Protein backbone atom coordinates (compact mmCIF):
# COMPACT_ATOMS: atom_id res chain seq x y z
CA UNK A 1 0.00 0.00 0.00
CA UNK A 2 2.62 2.53 1.02
CA UNK A 3 4.88 1.13 -1.64
CA UNK A 4 2.25 1.96 -4.20
CA UNK A 5 1.99 5.47 -2.82
CA UNK A 6 5.73 5.79 -2.99
CA UNK A 7 5.88 4.53 -6.57
CA UNK A 8 3.05 6.86 -7.45
CA UNK A 9 4.90 9.84 -6.02
CA UNK A 10 8.02 8.91 -7.97
CA UNK A 11 5.97 8.52 -11.13
CA UNK A 12 4.14 11.78 -10.52
CA UNK A 13 7.32 13.76 -9.92
CA UNK A 14 8.79 12.34 -13.08
CA UNK A 15 5.66 13.36 -14.97
CA UNK A 16 6.01 16.85 -13.60
CA UNK A 17 9.60 17.19 -14.77
CA UNK A 18 8.54 15.86 -18.15
CA UNK A 19 5.52 18.10 -18.49
CA UNK A 20 6.48 21.38 -16.83
CA UNK A 21 8.19 22.58 -20.00
CA UNK A 22 4.92 22.07 -21.85
CA UNK A 23 3.06 24.03 -19.23
CA UNK A 24 5.48 26.91 -19.68
CA UNK A 25 5.27 26.95 -23.48
CA UNK A 26 1.52 26.87 -23.25
CA UNK A 27 1.29 29.56 -20.63
CA UNK A 28 4.02 31.80 -21.96
CA UNK A 29 3.83 31.43 -25.70
CA UNK A 30 0.26 30.18 -25.93
CA UNK A 31 1.65 27.43 -28.09
CA UNK A 32 0.10 23.97 -28.22
CA UNK A 33 3.27 21.92 -28.49
CA UNK A 34 2.16 18.33 -28.98
CA UNK A 35 5.78 17.48 -29.84
CA UNK A 36 6.92 17.98 -26.27
CA UNK A 37 7.21 14.24 -25.70
CA UNK A 38 9.66 14.02 -28.59
CA UNK A 39 12.15 16.03 -26.53
CA UNK A 40 11.73 13.63 -23.65
CA UNK A 41 12.30 10.73 -26.00
CA UNK A 42 15.41 12.42 -27.36
CA UNK A 43 16.78 12.70 -23.81
CA UNK A 44 16.09 9.02 -23.29
CA UNK A 45 17.91 8.02 -26.45
CA UNK A 46 20.88 10.25 -25.65
CA UNK A 47 21.23 8.33 -22.39
CA UNK A 48 20.86 4.96 -24.07
CA UNK A 49 23.48 5.79 -26.71
CA UNK A 50 25.97 7.27 -24.28
CA UNK A 51 25.63 4.43 -21.80
CA UNK A 52 25.37 1.44 -24.06
CA UNK A 53 27.73 2.49 -26.84
CA UNK A 54 30.26 4.60 -25.04
CA UNK A 55 30.00 3.22 -21.55
CA UNK A 56 29.53 6.60 -19.94
CA UNK A 57 28.20 6.59 -16.38
CA UNK A 58 24.45 7.06 -15.88
CA UNK A 59 25.08 10.07 -13.67
CA UNK A 60 26.94 11.91 -16.43
CA UNK A 61 24.26 11.00 -18.93
CA UNK A 62 21.62 12.99 -17.06
CA UNK A 63 23.22 16.43 -17.54
CA UNK A 64 24.21 15.41 -21.06
CA UNK A 65 20.58 14.56 -21.87
CA UNK A 66 19.52 17.90 -20.47
CA UNK A 67 22.07 19.85 -22.47
CA UNK A 68 21.54 18.05 -25.75
CA UNK A 69 17.75 18.39 -25.71
CA UNK A 70 17.95 21.99 -24.49
CA UNK A 71 20.20 22.77 -27.43
CA UNK A 72 17.88 20.99 -29.87
CA UNK A 73 14.97 22.87 -28.33
CA UNK A 74 16.74 26.20 -28.70
CA UNK A 75 17.59 25.51 -32.33
CA UNK A 76 14.04 24.47 -33.16
CA UNK A 77 12.65 27.49 -31.32
CA UNK A 78 14.75 29.91 -33.32
CA UNK A 79 14.26 28.21 -36.67
CA UNK A 80 10.66 27.01 -36.55
CA UNK A 81 8.58 27.47 -33.42
CA UNK A 82 9.14 31.20 -33.22
CA UNK A 83 7.30 31.81 -36.46
CA UNK A 84 4.17 30.08 -35.26
CA UNK A 85 3.47 31.86 -31.97
CA UNK A 86 0.82 33.92 -33.65
CA UNK A 87 -0.51 31.16 -35.87
CA UNK A 88 -3.85 29.55 -35.15
CA UNK A 89 -4.03 26.66 -32.72
CA UNK A 90 -4.87 24.40 -35.63
CA UNK A 91 -1.61 25.31 -37.36
CA UNK A 92 0.34 24.73 -34.16
CA UNK A 93 -1.29 21.36 -33.70
CA UNK A 94 -0.60 20.28 -37.28
CA UNK A 95 2.99 21.46 -37.05
CA UNK A 96 3.74 19.73 -33.79
CA UNK A 97 2.01 16.51 -34.83
CA UNK A 98 4.25 16.64 -37.89
CA UNK A 99 7.31 16.95 -35.67
CA UNK A 100 6.15 14.02 -33.52
CA UNK A 101 5.69 11.82 -36.56
CA UNK A 102 9.12 12.73 -37.88
CA UNK A 103 10.70 12.07 -34.50
CA UNK A 104 9.00 8.69 -34.21
CA UNK A 105 10.08 7.62 -37.68
CA UNK A 106 13.61 8.90 -37.10
CA UNK A 107 13.91 7.04 -33.80
CA UNK A 108 12.64 3.92 -35.49
CA UNK A 109 15.14 4.33 -38.32
CA UNK A 110 18.21 4.95 -36.19
CA UNK A 111 17.46 2.98 -33.06
CA UNK A 112 14.98 0.32 -34.14
CA UNK A 113 11.48 -0.23 -32.88
CA UNK A 114 12.33 -2.32 -29.83
CA UNK A 115 12.22 -1.30 -26.18
CA UNK A 116 15.54 0.16 -25.09
CA UNK A 117 17.07 -1.20 -21.93
CA UNK A 118 19.57 0.59 -19.79
CA UNK A 119 21.68 -0.86 -17.05
CA UNK A 120 21.31 1.32 -14.03
CA UNK A 121 24.37 1.55 -11.77
CA UNK A 122 24.43 -1.17 -9.11
CA UNK A 123 23.56 1.18 -6.26
CA UNK A 124 20.30 2.16 -7.96
CA UNK A 125 19.09 -1.39 -8.43
CA UNK A 126 16.98 -3.42 -6.07
CA UNK A 127 14.94 -2.39 -3.11
CA UNK A 128 15.59 -0.72 0.15
CA UNK A 129 13.62 -1.72 3.20
CA UNK A 130 12.61 1.34 5.16
CA UNK A 131 10.28 0.89 8.15
CA UNK A 132 8.84 -2.17 6.47
CA UNK A 133 8.12 -0.38 3.23
CA UNK A 134 9.77 -1.71 0.14
CA UNK A 135 11.32 1.20 -1.68
CA UNK A 136 12.89 0.91 -5.11
CA UNK A 137 16.30 2.55 -5.02
CA UNK A 138 15.92 3.94 -8.52
CA UNK A 139 12.58 5.45 -7.57
CA UNK A 140 14.08 7.03 -4.51
CA UNK A 141 16.75 8.49 -6.75
CA UNK A 142 14.09 9.86 -9.12
CA UNK A 143 12.22 11.43 -6.22
CA UNK A 144 15.35 13.04 -4.85
CA UNK A 145 16.44 14.49 -8.17
CA UNK A 146 12.95 15.70 -9.00
CA UNK A 147 12.47 17.25 -5.59
CA UNK A 148 15.72 19.17 -5.98
CA UNK A 149 14.62 20.30 -9.43
CA UNK A 150 11.18 21.39 -8.25
CA UNK A 151 12.69 23.47 -5.45
CA UNK A 152 15.27 24.92 -7.82
CA UNK A 153 12.61 25.76 -10.38
CA UNK A 154 10.39 27.40 -7.81
CA UNK A 155 13.32 29.46 -6.52
CA UNK A 156 14.45 30.36 -10.01
CA UNK A 157 10.97 31.55 -10.91
CA UNK A 158 10.38 33.57 -7.77
CA UNK A 159 13.81 34.79 -6.75
CA UNK A 160 15.82 35.49 -9.85
CA UNK A 161 15.71 38.33 -12.34
CA UNK A 162 15.10 35.86 -15.14
CA UNK A 163 12.17 34.45 -13.22
CA UNK A 164 10.52 37.79 -12.67
CA UNK A 165 11.03 38.71 -16.32
CA UNK A 166 9.54 35.41 -17.33
CA UNK A 167 6.51 35.96 -15.14
CA UNK A 168 6.12 39.46 -16.50
CA UNK A 169 6.22 38.08 -20.04
CA UNK A 170 3.62 35.45 -19.16
CA UNK A 171 1.30 38.01 -17.65
CA UNK A 172 1.51 40.44 -20.52
CA UNK A 173 4.02 40.18 -23.32
CA UNK A 174 3.35 43.66 -24.63
CA UNK A 175 3.85 45.35 -21.30
CA UNK A 176 7.00 43.31 -20.67
CA UNK A 177 8.36 44.42 -24.03
CA UNK A 178 7.53 47.98 -23.12
CA UNK A 179 9.53 47.60 -19.93
CA UNK A 180 12.59 46.78 -21.97
CA UNK A 181 12.52 43.05 -21.37
CA UNK A 182 13.89 41.14 -24.32
CA UNK A 183 10.95 38.82 -24.80
CA UNK A 184 12.40 36.77 -27.64
CA UNK A 185 15.51 35.93 -25.59
CA UNK A 186 13.28 34.94 -22.70
CA UNK A 187 11.27 32.77 -25.06
CA UNK A 188 14.23 30.91 -26.47
CA UNK A 189 15.80 30.37 -23.04
CA UNK A 190 12.52 29.19 -21.60
CA UNK A 191 11.85 26.90 -24.49
CA UNK A 192 15.35 25.45 -24.15
CA UNK A 193 14.86 25.00 -20.41
CA UNK A 194 11.52 23.28 -20.92
CA UNK A 195 12.92 20.97 -23.59
CA UNK A 196 16.00 20.28 -21.49
CA UNK A 197 13.87 19.31 -18.50
CA UNK A 198 11.82 17.04 -20.72
CA UNK A 199 15.04 15.47 -21.95
CA UNK A 200 16.27 15.01 -18.40
CA UNK A 201 12.94 13.49 -17.49
CA UNK A 202 13.20 11.13 -20.44
CA UNK A 203 16.67 10.09 -19.32
CA UNK A 204 15.60 9.60 -15.71
CA UNK A 205 12.49 7.74 -16.74
CA UNK A 206 14.02 5.54 -19.43
CA UNK A 207 14.08 2.72 -16.90
CA UNK A 208 10.74 3.38 -15.25
CA UNK A 209 8.57 4.40 -18.22
CA UNK A 210 10.28 2.38 -20.91
CA UNK A 211 11.64 3.82 -24.10
CA UNK A 212 10.63 3.06 -27.65
CA UNK A 213 9.84 5.18 -30.71
CA UNK A 214 6.20 5.50 -29.69
CA UNK A 215 7.12 7.28 -26.45
CA UNK A 216 5.99 10.78 -27.57
CA UNK A 217 2.47 9.63 -28.41
CA UNK A 218 2.15 7.18 -25.54
CA UNK A 219 2.80 9.85 -22.94
CA UNK A 220 1.29 12.80 -24.75
CA UNK A 221 -2.01 12.28 -23.01
CA UNK A 222 -0.31 12.25 -19.61
CA UNK A 223 1.49 15.51 -20.30
CA UNK A 224 -1.66 17.11 -21.56
CA UNK A 225 -3.58 15.98 -18.51
CA UNK A 226 -0.96 17.46 -16.21
CA UNK A 227 -1.11 20.76 -18.04
CA UNK A 228 -4.85 21.00 -18.55
CA UNK A 229 -5.73 19.86 -15.06
CA UNK A 230 -2.98 21.88 -13.44
CA UNK A 231 -3.48 25.01 -15.46
CA UNK A 232 -0.68 27.13 -16.80
CA UNK A 233 -0.67 30.04 -14.42
CA UNK A 234 1.88 28.63 -11.96
CA UNK A 235 4.08 25.59 -11.54
CA UNK A 236 2.31 24.55 -8.36
CA UNK A 237 -0.85 23.57 -10.25
CA UNK A 238 0.87 21.21 -12.69
CA UNK A 239 2.98 19.84 -9.84
CA UNK A 240 -0.04 18.84 -7.77
CA UNK A 241 -1.80 17.56 -10.88
CA UNK A 242 1.24 15.45 -11.80
CA UNK A 243 1.47 13.97 -8.31
CA UNK A 244 -2.23 13.10 -8.26
CA UNK A 245 -2.04 11.63 -11.73
CA UNK A 246 1.03 9.60 -10.86
CA UNK A 247 -0.50 8.16 -7.72
CA UNK A 248 -3.88 7.55 -9.36
CA UNK A 249 -2.31 5.85 -12.35
CA UNK A 250 -0.07 3.55 -10.33
CA UNK A 251 -2.85 2.71 -7.89
CA UNK A 252 -5.32 2.21 -10.73
CA UNK A 253 -2.99 -0.18 -12.53
CA UNK A 254 -2.47 -2.10 -9.32
CA UNK A 255 -6.00 -2.33 -7.97
CA UNK A 256 -8.10 -2.12 -11.12
CA UNK A 257 -5.91 -3.36 -13.93
CA UNK A 258 -8.92 -4.10 -16.14
CA UNK A 259 -10.02 -0.46 -16.07
CA UNK A 260 -6.68 0.51 -17.58
CA UNK A 261 -6.23 4.15 -18.41
CA UNK A 262 -9.98 4.53 -18.58
CA UNK A 263 -10.38 6.31 -15.26
CA UNK A 264 -7.63 8.77 -16.03
CA UNK A 265 -9.21 9.90 -19.30
CA UNK A 266 -12.63 10.12 -17.74
CA UNK A 267 -11.29 12.26 -14.90
CA UNK A 268 -9.54 14.55 -17.36
CA UNK A 269 -12.69 15.08 -19.40
CA UNK A 270 -14.65 15.72 -16.23
CA UNK A 271 -12.16 18.32 -15.04
CA UNK A 272 -12.22 20.02 -18.42
CA UNK A 273 -16.00 20.24 -18.29
CA UNK A 274 -16.06 21.66 -14.80
CA UNK A 275 -13.00 23.88 -14.92
CA UNK A 276 -11.95 24.63 -18.50
CA UNK A 277 -8.97 26.62 -17.26
CA UNK A 278 -7.60 23.89 -15.03
CA UNK A 279 -8.33 22.68 -11.55
CA UNK A 280 -5.82 24.91 -9.84
CA UNK A 281 -5.89 27.97 -12.03
CA UNK A 282 -6.09 31.17 -10.06
CA UNK A 283 -8.63 32.98 -12.14
CA UNK A 284 -10.91 29.96 -12.26
CA UNK A 285 -13.78 30.51 -14.64
CA UNK A 286 -13.55 33.54 -16.78
Amino acid at each position, binding site marked *: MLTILFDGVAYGMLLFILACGLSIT*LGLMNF*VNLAHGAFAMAGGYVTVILMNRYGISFYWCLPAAFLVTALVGAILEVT*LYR*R*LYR*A*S*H*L*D*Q*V*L*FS*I*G*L*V*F*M*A*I*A*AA*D*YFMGGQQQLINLPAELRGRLDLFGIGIGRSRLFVILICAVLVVALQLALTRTRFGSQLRAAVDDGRVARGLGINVSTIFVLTFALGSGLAGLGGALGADMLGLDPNFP*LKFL*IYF*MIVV*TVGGTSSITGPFIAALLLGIADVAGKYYLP*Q*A*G*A*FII*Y*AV*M*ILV*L*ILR*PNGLFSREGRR
Partner: protein
Amino acid sequence: MTHHTQASEFLNARHRWRLWEIALWLLAVAAIFILPSQLLILTEIAILALFAVSLDLILGYAGIVSLGHTAFFGLGAYAAGILARDYVSEPVTGLVFAGLISGLFGLATSFLVLRGSDLTRLMTTFGVAMLLAELGNQATWLTGGADGLSGISMSPILGLFEFDLYGRNGYIYCLAVLIVLTFVARRIVNSPFGLSLMAIKRNPRRAAMLGISPKRRIVAIYSVSAAYAGMAGALLAQTTNFVSPDVLAFHRSADVLLVLVIGGAGYLYGGIFGAIIFTLLRDWLSVATPQYWMFWIGLILVAIVMIGRERLTGWPLLLAARLRGKPAEDAR
Protein backbone atom coordinates in the same frame (compact mmCIF):
# COMPACT_ATOMS: atom_id res chain seq x y z
CA MET B 1 -27.44 45.00 -64.46
CA THR B 2 -29.94 45.80 -61.77
CA HIS B 3 -29.26 44.95 -58.19
CA HIS B 4 -32.09 42.49 -58.39
CA THR B 5 -30.58 40.34 -61.07
CA GLN B 6 -27.16 40.70 -59.51
CA ALA B 7 -28.48 39.42 -56.19
CA SER B 8 -30.32 36.46 -57.63
CA GLU B 9 -27.37 35.61 -59.82
CA PHE B 10 -25.06 35.66 -56.82
CA LEU B 11 -27.43 33.54 -54.77
CA ASN B 12 -27.97 31.03 -57.53
CA ALA B 13 -24.24 30.81 -58.16
CA ARG B 14 -23.74 29.88 -54.50
CA HIS B 15 -25.35 26.51 -54.96
CA ARG B 16 -25.04 25.89 -58.69
CA TRP B 17 -23.24 22.72 -59.73
CA ARG B 18 -19.88 23.64 -61.19
CA LEU B 19 -18.38 22.06 -64.23
CA TRP B 20 -15.41 20.69 -62.32
CA GLU B 21 -17.72 19.15 -59.72
CA ILE B 22 -19.64 17.25 -62.36
CA ALA B 23 -16.41 16.27 -64.08
CA LEU B 24 -15.02 14.95 -60.81
CA TRP B 25 -18.01 12.70 -60.20
CA LEU B 26 -18.12 11.54 -63.80
CA LEU B 27 -14.46 10.59 -63.55
CA ALA B 28 -15.11 8.74 -60.31
CA VAL B 29 -17.86 6.75 -61.99
CA ALA B 30 -15.81 6.20 -65.14
CA ALA B 31 -13.00 4.78 -62.99
CA ILE B 32 -15.11 1.63 -62.58
CA PHE B 33 -14.42 0.86 -66.23
CA ILE B 34 -11.13 2.67 -66.82
CA LEU B 35 -9.22 1.44 -63.77
CA PRO B 36 -10.65 -2.00 -62.97
CA SER B 37 -7.38 -3.08 -61.36
CA GLN B 38 -7.24 -0.09 -59.02
CA LEU B 39 -10.68 -0.47 -57.46
CA LEU B 40 -9.38 -1.37 -54.01
CA ILE B 41 -7.35 1.80 -53.66
CA LEU B 42 -10.23 3.81 -55.12
CA THR B 43 -12.49 2.34 -52.46
CA GLU B 44 -9.99 3.40 -49.85
CA ILE B 45 -10.00 6.92 -51.29
CA ALA B 46 -13.78 7.09 -51.26
CA ILE B 47 -13.92 6.06 -47.60
CA LEU B 48 -11.19 8.49 -46.56
CA ALA B 49 -12.89 11.22 -48.56
CA LEU B 50 -16.16 10.69 -46.73
CA PHE B 51 -14.34 10.78 -43.41
CA ALA B 52 -12.63 14.03 -44.38
CA VAL B 53 -15.89 15.57 -45.61
CA SER B 54 -17.35 14.82 -42.20
CA LEU B 55 -14.45 16.64 -40.52
CA ASP B 56 -14.87 19.55 -42.91
CA LEU B 57 -18.45 19.99 -41.73
CA ILE B 58 -17.25 20.87 -38.23
CA LEU B 59 -13.77 22.26 -38.89
CA GLY B 60 -14.28 24.05 -42.18
CA TYR B 61 -17.80 25.28 -41.58
CA ALA B 62 -18.25 25.62 -37.82
CA GLY B 63 -14.58 26.17 -36.91
CA ILE B 64 -14.33 23.36 -34.37
CA VAL B 65 -10.87 21.79 -34.13
CA SER B 66 -10.86 18.12 -33.22
CA LEU B 67 -7.97 15.86 -32.34
CA GLY B 68 -10.20 12.84 -31.94
CA HIS B 69 -12.51 12.69 -34.91
CA THR B 70 -11.64 9.06 -35.41
CA ALA B 71 -13.74 8.27 -32.33
CA PHE B 72 -16.81 8.45 -34.55
CA PHE B 73 -15.14 6.67 -37.45
CA GLY B 74 -14.03 3.81 -35.22
CA LEU B 75 -17.33 3.60 -33.40
CA GLY B 76 -19.15 3.35 -36.72
CA ALA B 77 -16.76 0.65 -37.91
CA TYR B 78 -17.30 -1.41 -34.76
CA ALA B 79 -21.07 -0.83 -34.83
CA ALA B 80 -21.33 -2.01 -38.43
CA GLY B 81 -18.93 -4.88 -37.80
CA ILE B 82 -20.71 -6.18 -34.73
CA LEU B 83 -24.14 -5.83 -36.34
CA ALA B 84 -22.95 -7.80 -39.36
CA ARG B 85 -21.20 -10.46 -37.28
CA ASP B 86 -24.04 -11.09 -34.85
CA TYR B 87 -27.31 -9.88 -36.33
CA VAL B 88 -27.89 -8.41 -39.79
CA SER B 89 -25.35 -8.77 -42.55
CA GLU B 90 -27.05 -6.51 -45.09
CA PRO B 91 -24.67 -3.54 -45.68
CA VAL B 92 -27.10 -0.62 -46.08
CA THR B 93 -28.80 -1.55 -42.80
CA GLY B 94 -25.39 -1.60 -41.17
CA LEU B 95 -24.51 1.73 -42.72
CA VAL B 96 -27.61 3.40 -41.34
CA PHE B 97 -27.14 1.70 -37.98
CA ALA B 98 -23.53 2.87 -37.73
CA GLY B 99 -24.52 6.39 -38.71
CA LEU B 100 -27.18 6.41 -36.01
CA ILE B 101 -24.88 5.09 -33.31
CA SER B 102 -22.09 7.51 -34.14
CA GLY B 103 -24.51 10.37 -34.57
CA LEU B 104 -26.02 9.71 -31.14
CA PHE B 105 -22.55 9.50 -29.64
CA GLY B 106 -21.73 12.80 -31.36
CA LEU B 107 -24.88 14.31 -29.90
CA ALA B 108 -23.97 13.03 -26.45
CA THR B 109 -20.41 14.37 -26.60
CA SER B 110 -21.19 17.58 -28.46
CA PHE B 111 -21.57 19.52 -25.23
CA LEU B 112 -17.84 18.95 -24.71
CA VAL B 113 -16.95 21.14 -27.66
CA LEU B 114 -19.35 23.93 -26.80
CA ARG B 115 -17.31 25.44 -24.03
CA GLY B 116 -13.85 26.74 -23.69
CA SER B 117 -11.08 27.50 -26.08
CA ASP B 118 -9.53 25.62 -29.00
CA LEU B 119 -7.22 23.98 -26.50
CA THR B 120 -10.04 22.60 -24.37
CA ARG B 121 -11.72 21.30 -27.50
CA LEU B 122 -8.53 19.63 -28.65
CA MET B 123 -8.13 17.98 -25.27
CA THR B 124 -11.71 16.82 -24.86
CA THR B 125 -11.98 15.41 -28.39
CA PHE B 126 -8.60 13.74 -27.96
CA GLY B 127 -9.69 12.39 -24.58
CA VAL B 128 -12.95 10.99 -25.90
CA ALA B 129 -11.13 9.19 -28.71
CA MET B 130 -8.56 7.75 -26.29
CA LEU B 131 -11.35 6.65 -23.99
CA LEU B 132 -13.09 4.81 -26.80
CA ALA B 133 -9.82 3.25 -27.97
CA GLU B 134 -9.22 1.99 -24.45
CA LEU B 135 -12.77 0.67 -24.26
CA GLY B 136 -12.44 -1.09 -27.61
CA ASN B 137 -9.23 -2.64 -26.44
CA GLN B 138 -10.64 -3.85 -23.12
CA ALA B 139 -14.04 -5.13 -24.21
CA THR B 140 -12.56 -8.18 -25.89
CA TRP B 141 -15.82 -10.15 -25.68
CA LEU B 142 -17.50 -7.59 -27.95
CA THR B 143 -14.77 -6.12 -30.10
CA GLY B 144 -12.15 -8.82 -30.28
CA GLY B 145 -9.77 -6.59 -28.38
CA ALA B 146 -6.29 -6.18 -29.76
CA ASP B 147 -6.85 -8.94 -32.33
CA GLY B 148 -9.58 -6.95 -34.01
CA LEU B 149 -13.09 -7.88 -34.96
CA SER B 150 -13.26 -10.69 -37.47
CA GLY B 151 -15.80 -13.21 -38.61
CA ILE B 152 -17.78 -10.67 -40.59
CA SER B 153 -19.29 -11.78 -43.82
CA MET B 154 -21.51 -9.35 -45.62
CA SER B 155 -24.56 -10.41 -47.55
CA PRO B 156 -25.36 -8.75 -50.90
CA ILE B 157 -26.08 -5.02 -50.87
CA LEU B 158 -29.86 -4.58 -50.56
CA GLY B 159 -29.97 -8.31 -51.21
CA LEU B 160 -29.03 -7.69 -54.85
CA PHE B 161 -25.35 -6.96 -55.36
CA GLU B 162 -22.74 -9.32 -54.03
CA PHE B 163 -19.34 -8.01 -52.93
CA ASP B 164 -16.98 -9.44 -55.53
CA LEU B 165 -13.31 -10.33 -55.30
CA TYR B 166 -12.17 -7.43 -57.48
CA GLY B 167 -13.87 -4.92 -55.24
CA ARG B 168 -16.00 -3.66 -58.09
CA ASN B 169 -19.33 -3.65 -56.30
CA GLY B 170 -17.57 -2.53 -53.13
CA TYR B 171 -16.28 0.55 -54.92
CA ILE B 172 -19.62 1.29 -56.53
CA TYR B 173 -21.28 0.98 -53.13
CA CYS B 174 -18.78 3.32 -51.42
CA LEU B 175 -18.88 5.80 -54.26
CA ALA B 176 -22.67 5.85 -54.22
CA VAL B 177 -22.67 6.51 -50.49
CA LEU B 178 -20.06 9.24 -50.92
CA ILE B 179 -22.03 10.91 -53.69
CA VAL B 180 -25.31 10.81 -51.83
CA LEU B 181 -23.79 12.08 -48.57
CA THR B 182 -21.80 14.80 -50.32
CA PHE B 183 -24.98 15.90 -52.02
CA VAL B 184 -26.75 16.05 -48.65
CA ALA B 185 -23.84 17.95 -47.10
CA ARG B 186 -23.92 20.34 -50.02
CA ARG B 187 -27.58 21.09 -49.39
CA ILE B 188 -26.86 21.64 -45.72
CA VAL B 189 -23.95 24.04 -46.16
CA ASN B 190 -25.77 26.05 -48.83
CA SER B 191 -28.87 26.48 -46.68
CA PRO B 192 -29.68 29.27 -44.23
CA PHE B 193 -28.52 26.86 -41.51
CA GLY B 194 -25.18 26.44 -43.27
CA LEU B 195 -24.83 30.19 -43.57
CA SER B 196 -25.41 30.56 -39.85
CA LEU B 197 -22.60 28.05 -39.21
CA MET B 198 -20.24 30.03 -41.39
CA ALA B 199 -21.16 33.14 -39.45
CA ILE B 200 -20.60 31.42 -36.11
CA LYS B 201 -17.16 30.30 -37.24
CA ARG B 202 -16.19 33.78 -38.34
CA ASN B 203 -17.62 35.73 -35.42
CA PRO B 204 -19.58 33.89 -32.72
CA ARG B 205 -20.15 37.06 -30.73
CA ARG B 206 -21.82 38.87 -33.56
CA ALA B 207 -23.72 35.76 -34.59
CA ALA B 208 -25.28 35.60 -31.13
CA MET B 209 -26.15 39.29 -31.46
CA LEU B 210 -28.18 38.48 -34.56
CA GLY B 211 -30.28 36.10 -32.51
CA ILE B 212 -28.42 32.90 -33.36
CA SER B 213 -27.92 30.41 -30.56
CA PRO B 214 -24.44 29.11 -31.50
CA LYS B 215 -24.75 26.14 -29.15
CA ARG B 216 -27.74 24.54 -30.82
CA ARG B 217 -26.30 24.96 -34.29
CA ILE B 218 -22.99 23.44 -33.22
CA VAL B 219 -24.70 20.51 -31.52
CA ALA B 220 -26.64 19.87 -34.72
CA ILE B 221 -23.70 19.96 -37.12
CA TYR B 222 -21.45 18.06 -34.71
CA SER B 223 -23.97 15.21 -34.60
CA VAL B 224 -24.34 15.18 -38.38
CA SER B 225 -20.58 15.17 -38.77
CA ALA B 226 -20.28 12.30 -36.29
CA ALA B 227 -22.89 10.31 -38.23
CA TYR B 228 -20.96 10.90 -41.46
CA ALA B 229 -17.73 9.70 -39.85
CA GLY B 230 -19.57 6.68 -38.48
CA MET B 231 -20.83 5.76 -41.93
CA ALA B 232 -17.32 6.12 -43.34
CA GLY B 233 -16.16 3.70 -40.64
CA ALA B 234 -19.00 1.32 -41.53
CA LEU B 235 -17.90 1.32 -45.17
CA LEU B 236 -14.40 0.35 -44.10
CA ALA B 237 -15.67 -2.52 -41.94
CA GLN B 238 -18.02 -3.77 -44.64
CA THR B 239 -15.57 -3.65 -47.53
CA THR B 240 -12.70 -5.25 -45.61
CA ASN B 241 -14.76 -7.67 -43.46
CA PHE B 242 -12.56 -6.72 -40.55
CA VAL B 243 -12.29 -4.05 -37.86
CA SER B 244 -8.83 -3.43 -36.53
CA PRO B 245 -8.41 -1.60 -33.20
CA ASP B 246 -6.37 0.77 -35.33
CA VAL B 247 -9.63 2.48 -36.41
CA LEU B 248 -9.59 4.31 -33.10
CA ALA B 249 -5.88 5.10 -33.09
CA PHE B 250 -4.64 8.65 -32.76
CA HIS B 251 -2.86 8.64 -36.10
CA ARG B 252 -6.21 8.35 -37.87
CA SER B 253 -7.40 11.59 -36.33
CA ALA B 254 -4.13 13.17 -37.43
CA ASP B 255 -4.36 11.65 -40.91
CA VAL B 256 -7.84 12.99 -41.55
CA LEU B 257 -6.72 16.44 -40.41
CA LEU B 258 -3.85 16.24 -42.86
CA VAL B 259 -6.16 15.11 -45.65
CA LEU B 260 -8.42 18.08 -45.08
CA VAL B 261 -5.51 20.48 -44.78
CA ILE B 262 -4.01 19.25 -48.06
CA GLY B 263 -7.30 19.73 -49.86
CA GLY B 264 -8.29 22.89 -48.03
CA ALA B 265 -11.09 23.20 -45.48
CA GLY B 266 -14.37 25.00 -45.79
CA TYR B 267 -15.67 24.13 -49.26
CA LEU B 268 -16.60 20.46 -48.89
CA TYR B 269 -14.48 19.15 -51.77
CA GLY B 270 -11.23 19.68 -49.88
CA GLY B 271 -11.72 16.34 -48.18
CA ILE B 272 -12.21 14.61 -51.53
CA PHE B 273 -9.22 16.17 -53.27
CA GLY B 274 -7.18 15.71 -50.12
CA ALA B 275 -8.08 12.02 -49.92
CA ILE B 276 -6.99 11.47 -53.52
CA ILE B 277 -3.67 13.25 -53.05
CA PHE B 278 -3.02 11.70 -49.63
CA THR B 279 -3.71 8.14 -50.72
CA LEU B 280 -1.67 8.38 -53.91
CA LEU B 281 1.17 10.03 -52.01
CA ARG B 282 1.13 7.34 -49.37
CA ASP B 283 1.09 4.62 -51.96
CA TRP B 284 4.01 6.15 -53.78
CA LEU B 285 6.06 6.90 -50.67
CA SER B 286 5.46 3.58 -49.01
CA VAL B 287 6.75 1.83 -52.08
CA ALA B 288 9.93 3.90 -51.84
CA THR B 289 10.36 3.63 -48.06
CA PRO B 290 7.81 1.23 -46.62
CA GLN B 291 8.48 1.74 -42.92
CA TYR B 292 9.04 5.42 -42.83
CA TRP B 293 5.85 6.74 -44.33
CA MET B 294 5.23 8.41 -40.97
CA PHE B 295 8.32 10.53 -41.45
CA TRP B 296 7.01 11.85 -44.74
CA ILE B 297 3.58 12.62 -43.32
CA GLY B 298 5.32 14.55 -40.57
CA LEU B 299 7.48 16.42 -43.04
CA ILE B 300 4.46 17.28 -45.17
CA LEU B 301 2.58 18.58 -42.14
CA VAL B 302 5.50 20.74 -41.02
CA ALA B 303 6.06 22.01 -44.54
CA ILE B 304 2.39 22.86 -45.05
CA VAL B 305 2.28 24.88 -41.85
CA MET B 306 5.59 26.63 -42.44
CA ILE B 307 4.75 27.57 -46.01
CA GLY B 308 1.29 28.64 -44.92
CA ARG B 309 -1.91 26.73 -45.45
CA GLU B 310 -3.60 29.57 -47.30
CA ARG B 311 -0.79 30.05 -49.74
CA LEU B 312 -0.46 26.36 -50.39
CA THR B 313 -4.12 25.61 -50.74
CA GLY B 314 -4.86 28.72 -52.72
CA TRP B 315 -6.23 26.69 -55.57
CA PRO B 316 -9.12 25.13 -53.68
CA LEU B 317 -9.85 28.49 -52.11
CA LEU B 318 -10.14 29.87 -55.57
CA LEU B 319 -12.51 27.09 -56.47
CA ALA B 320 -14.36 27.76 -53.26
CA ALA B 321 -14.69 31.42 -54.11
CA ARG B 322 -16.02 30.54 -57.51
CA LEU B 323 -18.32 28.02 -55.95
CA ARG B 324 -19.78 30.85 -53.94
CA GLY B 325 -20.03 32.96 -57.03
CA LYS B 326 -17.38 35.53 -56.31
CA PRO B 327 -14.81 36.80 -58.76
CA ALA B 328 -11.41 35.18 -58.35
CA GLU B 329 -9.62 38.25 -57.03
CA ASP B 330 -11.79 38.11 -53.91
CA ALA B 331 -10.66 34.61 -53.09
CA ARG B 332 -8.71 35.55 -50.01
